[in-house]
């Protein structure tokens, strides 16, 4: 088994060194076929170039689709900003990224009873699409604005008490010219380095913890009834 590389993260220093974000950032880049990538590979390099940012190339860490949940939860717990970088596949995220959500954002940790691990964090999507911007219009061949494909991302954030920040999207990623690509990567790097001092965040309210799930939707878990084994997260990375 290839063990995931243990994250070498330096905690964001209080004195905010030059070029390092003032708060902890975890960037998850998911691309199933790096050799066909044009945009995301640049974003990955850019993220790795910034001091103090924890970067996870998801498909290289878990090529076998067996995710180390405990390690991922530790990385998430440390972060203030969680960044999802991936191409949009069939109007959604690549499969390993979806699996990551399914397994890492577990009940009792990310949501549900005593599940507050992600509360007050920010989730930011940096996506690239094959279709050009004008395909994401009512009269375009994708029939909907891009934002119409994002309710799943938004609601996931909401349920875990996170803010879903305005996504940064590069349309027509396969054909855009190099200047547009450079601009996209530059913007991305700049935002990572300056988080949380983004103009749009000043006016954005903190996320309210979602309390709207009736308790009957989930089996009530009480540790007393549980087996005397360490269920769940007792694994060493």
């Amino acid at each position, binding site marked *: 088994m290839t063990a995931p590389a243990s994250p070498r993260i330096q905690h964001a220093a209080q004195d905010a060194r030059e070029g390092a974000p003032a708060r902890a950032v975890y960037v998850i880049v998911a691309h199933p*076929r*790096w*050799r066909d990538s044009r945009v995301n590979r640049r974003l990955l390099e850019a993220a790795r170039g910034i001091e103090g940012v924890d970067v996870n190339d998801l498909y290289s860490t878990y*090529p076998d689709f067996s995710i180390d949940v405990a390690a991922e939860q530790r990385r998430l717990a440390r972060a203030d900003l969680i960044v999802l970088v991936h191409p949009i596949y069939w109007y959604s995220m690549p499969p390993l990224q979806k699996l990551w959500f399914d397994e890492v954002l577990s009940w009792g940790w990310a949501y549900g009873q005593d599940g507050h691990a992600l509360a007050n964090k920010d989730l930011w999507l940096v996506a690239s699409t094959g279709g050009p911007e004008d395909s994401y219009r009512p009269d375009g061949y994708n029939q909907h604005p891009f934002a119409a494909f994002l309710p799943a991302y938004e609601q996931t954030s909401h349920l875990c008490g996170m803010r879903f920040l305005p996504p940064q999207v590069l349309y027509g990623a*396969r054909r855009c010219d190099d200047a547009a690509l450079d601009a996209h990567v530059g913007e991305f790097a700049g935002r990572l380095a300056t988080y949380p001092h983004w103009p749009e965040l000043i006016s954005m309210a903190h996320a309210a913890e979602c309390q709207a799930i009736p308790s009957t939707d989930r089996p009530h878990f009480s540790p007393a009834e549980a087996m005397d084994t360490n269920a769940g997260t007792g694994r060493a990375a």
Partner: protein
Amino acid sequence: MEHVPAWLLASLIYLAAAVIVVPLSRALGLGAIIGYLAAGIAIGPWGLGLVSRVEDVLHFAEFGVVLMLFLVGLELEPRRLWSLRRPIFGWGSAQVAGCAVLLFAAGVALGAPWRIALVAALGLALSSTAIALQVMAERNMLATASGQAGFSILLFQDVAAIPILALLPLLANSVDSHAMTGTTRALEALKIVGVIAAIVLGGRLALRPLLRWIANSRTPEIFTAAALLLVVAIATLMQLVGLSMALGAFLAGVLLAESEYRRELETDIEPFKGLLLGLFFIAVGMSIDFGVLLAQPLRMITVVVGFMALKGLAIYGVSRLMQLPYQERPVFTLLLAQGGEFAFVVFQSAGPQVLPPAVSSFLIGAVALSMLLSPLLLVAIDKWLLPRYGMKGSPRMEEISEPQSANVVICGFGRYGQIVGRTLVPQGVSVTVLDHDPDTIESLRQFGFRVFYGDATRLDLLRIAGVANARAVVIAVDDVDQSLEIADLMREHFPEVPVVARARNVGHLFQLRERGVQHIEREVFESSLRSARSVLEALGWPAAEAREATMAFRRANVQLTDEMYPSYQDRNKMIATAKEGRRQFEEQMARERAMRHAQRQVTFGWDGERAPDGTKDDRHA
């Protein structure tokens, strides 16, 4: 006392002696054989004098040796026997001839008449099958190189016994009144050939239907009776034509080795063999003539030590020629150095013209003493010699005896079985582990694993291990033959229990599949794929794509293996299938590469000479 029939009293004495002395001897680390011999000495004419008629008991108990060879035959399929033909005839004749020549020369040099020297040399050249096989079984040697060699030589001795016995009348001084004419001799030979042919043909054609018919009667004790009858009948036949009973039994065993009743026969005969062999050793103990020993102690000791040393010399030479591992040579040498039960037969049937009674009883005493000495010497080797080689003599392990009831039984706990077991245990799965290598078990126990000692190819041990109620059985032994044996047992007796098996190679995989095993893994397939992945990553491939490529190969290979299975007996056909499969896969991969290349050109406008990540685009030049 008068009201107690003699046979009852005799049984009481024999059984009591065995039950008291053997556990004692085992506890002292001397092994069971010495225990039986000691029990024999204790109750014999030179001990408490409780029993008489040693001769009769000895003849009766010799049947234990016959049963033992029948069981040995059962373990040997004709194919394996055929593959052993070189060691049997080559090394076997080297050992017998080497020993006989040395002993004969020594005898003549010491001034014995040449006839006596020759008979003595031939008699003493043979070893004790009973002792050697018993020791090998006790020490788990049959799988080792020296075990195989020893077994081959013992087998040859059983064959060699026939001409030796035929030679005896020719040595008789008197102008041979029984001189056989050419016709009678031809008749004799014809009889021998006829009997062997009858056994082979009968075994091939009649035995299996007969056994099936008996098995279908569903009376277990009748099957046991039939098994015994079979051996007794064959032994009788062999006696009639003057051949070795043991050899006949061995032949019958080989013929039944491939039959579906092999396991039942084994399980049924085993206890008889054990007891009769025990009785045989007791009888040997009783027949040690301490009178001769006390009359000429020095001479006796000289003869015993002398002939064992000479034999040892010859056998050690053979073991060097055979290039046996040097640390196995001492045990191997000792294993064959003693005189055998066959010597008794030779000396008794030589007759007074060739061998004067005094000499004969002296020699029989010497042989019996050597039989007593060799297990003792083995103990000495274990204690003093082997530690100097930096290796332990195999510790005597207690076989699995408490019935187990885990959900999973793992047979073989080497590198393969260990990973399986260690994966399951933390998941709360109950596992019973069987292994037959004492050294492995010793070290595993030090690491805190609970491993039972036992040969998983034995039906009774599988039952004790709880296979009947297991939810899965893992065959992880590294020996192909043993693995197939266990698979056969599983199919025969526990067809409803799922079997998960390790295959050494594709051929083994097909053989397992033929036996209905569903879950088979080639032992290095997945790890080799992993290494291929690592190579691709070293070439700069992203991990996920390296995985995808090797998985594509894996799928194609598994599919190809499936396609090859129907024709796996036909090498040419198999090669053709394999070549075609490989060609198709390569073409498919080339097509996919070209597709992706074209796609990149269309969408990115790259020229494709280099992929964007700086790795060479992987097209064929």
